[in-house]
């Protein structure tokens, strides 16, 4: 990654000469937060020079330092230090920008954007992306990894922003196939309830399956699922705290997705309620009723309590509800 010219002399350049709209060589998406950098520039000014290239009409374009440029403008600086490269090609400058970038923490979205540009703008072959650029970007040199990053880099901005917030990339890829309104519904839920990755996947899995079933039946899409399941109502229930609302949404969707299982669970709850089990006794069915053993455990503080609980267990043993619970397994 050598440049065909010696390091240019440091210059002080008028910001007005720089065309900041030309993002050909930008690696970091424009919308990435830059609070820390902005704060530092606000009090110190730009101390690390921008790297620039001559552009038509006497203007200069940025090769490195897009964020420094934006922060300088925002805080009203008129001039910045810069190195102006006159002979280096775009690809050579881009390589240098990458080499500089990887000295700090790099987000997958930046890796992805760099690879998409290398492939689409500079025509770099996939083999070279794997062998040369993935290691440079601190990523394992495999075609699978390359494909994932290229997919990530080709997502639209809304989805990339969601990935940057917390969206699981695999979910984002599948979300890309949804209609815009459907996506917005899902992304809105993530914003409102901020679920962790596992809950996110659970929510997406349910919605995606239900949406596909609807579409196969030709009876609409996510909107119908959202209404018919009761999730919409749960979402609008302002009287319930957010975590509970989210649980109710998941529950509504589960009921629609697995109606037989839900009926089974309801029956179990009813029967268990009918047994009037004291809190010291715990009755547990295997997950999804898949297994033929009911687990019963109890805890007590003394012999009298022990005898009392054994008596209750014996009494439970004769109840019809218990027999019916066994039938659910």
């Amino acid at each position: 990654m050598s440049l065909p010219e010696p390091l240019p002399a440091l210059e002080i350049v008028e910001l007005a000469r720089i065309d900041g709209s030309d993002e050909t060589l930008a690696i970091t998406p424009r919308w990435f937060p830059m609070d820390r950098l902005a704060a530092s520039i606000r009090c110190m000014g730009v101390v690390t020079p921008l790297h620039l290239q001559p552009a038509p009409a006497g203007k200069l374009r940025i090769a490195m330092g897009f964020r420094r440029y934006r922060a300088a403008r925002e805080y009203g600086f008129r001039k910045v230090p810069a190195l102006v490269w006159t002979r280096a090609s775009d690809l050579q400058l881009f390589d240098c920008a990458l080499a500089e970038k990887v000295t700090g923490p790099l987000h997958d979205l930046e890796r992805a954007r760099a690879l998409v540009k290398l492939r689409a703008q500079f025509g770099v072959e996939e083999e070279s992306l794997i062998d040369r650029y993935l290691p440079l970007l601190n990523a394992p040199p495999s075609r699978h990894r390359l494909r994932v990053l290229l997919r990530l880099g080709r997502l639209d901005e809304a989805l990339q922003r969601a990935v940057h917030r917390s969206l699981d990339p695999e979910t984002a890829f599948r979300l890309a196939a949804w209609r815009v309104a459907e996506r917005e519904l899902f992304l809105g839920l993530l914003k409102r309830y901020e679920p962790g990755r596992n809950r996110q996947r659970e929510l997406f899995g349910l919605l995606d399956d239900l949406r596909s079933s609807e579409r196969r039946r030709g009876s609409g899409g996510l909107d119908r699922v959202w209404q018919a399941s009761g999730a919409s109502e749960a979402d609008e229930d302002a009287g319930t705290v957010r975590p509970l609302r989210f649980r109710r949404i998941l529950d509504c969707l589960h009921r629609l997705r697995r109606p037989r299982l839900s009926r089974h669970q309801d029956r179990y709850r009813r029967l268990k309620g009918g047994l009037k089990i004291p809190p010291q006794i715990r009755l547990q069915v295997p997950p999804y009723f898949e297994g033929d053993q009911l687990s019963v455990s109890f805890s007590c503080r003394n012999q009298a309590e022990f005898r009392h609980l054994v008596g209750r267990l014996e009494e439970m043993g004769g109840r019809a509800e218990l027999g019916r619970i066994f039938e659910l397994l």
Partner: protein
Amino acid sequence: MVAYTPDKIYVERGVADSWITRNVLRRLPATPVEWLEDSRTLLSASRRAGPSLAAAKRSLVLARHKGRFFKDCPAGRSRGERNVCCNYFVVNYASNCHMECSYCYLQTHLNFPHLVVYANYPDLLQELEARFESHPSTPFRVGTGELADSLALDSLTRYSVPLVEFFSRYGNAILEFKTKSDCVENLMGLDHGGRTVVSWSINPRAVQESDEHRTASIERRLRAAERCVAEGYRVGFHLDPMIHYPGWQGDYEDLVDEIFRRLPSRSVAWISLGSLRLSAGLKAFMRSRFPRSGLPLGELVPVPDGKLRYFWPIRVRMYRSAVEWVRARSPRTPVYLCMERPGVWSKVFAQAPPDEKRLGRSLAVTAAR
């Protein structure tokens, strides 16, 4: 079945002279061949290059099997509650399959995406011989369809021929070919001695058309079964994976009916039942590879063996119905469940699951009758 014609054949030098290799090369004279010292180099290359599954299956690899061919069927070994095992054994003469069933577990199970045939079949036979002779009173049921379809490549390899002839010499062993193809040509005229069962995994036509891509149509499978029966083979059917969809009852009953209308019940060695099972990874893979398939949208729940399956009352209902349909047409045909826990067996057959050794033995004995 859509016939398999690879774009390229890789041959390990160690099996250059194998009869299987010669068969393949003779049948595909125009296909480019690359000679390899060791097919494992291909494995590491494919890991790095990550070719798509469909692309990788376009190459056929003829290799030497380095480990043991003969294994216990892994179905009984499961996480959580153990599934009932029917004492089945498998020999992996090949791995991977050129057909494209949406639900095929090989898609995420194999770490080598190419289609491989292990051409050192004399080693396979030697291993079997040692096993059968050292346990002369143990009845063995041995299948070749665990990691590949048993017959889909047979028109290229002729692998079935030495296997059928070998098993005909052993009174304590039954060979089962399990297939979704109609490639039975090589079985005609062989002296099988009643020791080979040819069986078909079978589903209603609607499922075959939507989810068993490139496989032989149900009509062709049944015609192939008729040809085998005419040659004195016993045949088997695996209603596996049974799929739960609107109208499943009518379609499966028609299928069972058709089997017993077209084939004499005494020629049916067994019928096994199993239902759709997917790992979470396979479900995601299916959703992206076969986005039009409705199979992952069934009422599946995670079960202790780590798979997603239909919620048990659905499975029990499907199995019970199938058992009734079979019993109504052929009361003596053995029916068993594949990869199911004892609790489900009890519900389906209204009795405790059979002793596993006896189950395997009785299937082997009825097959040989």
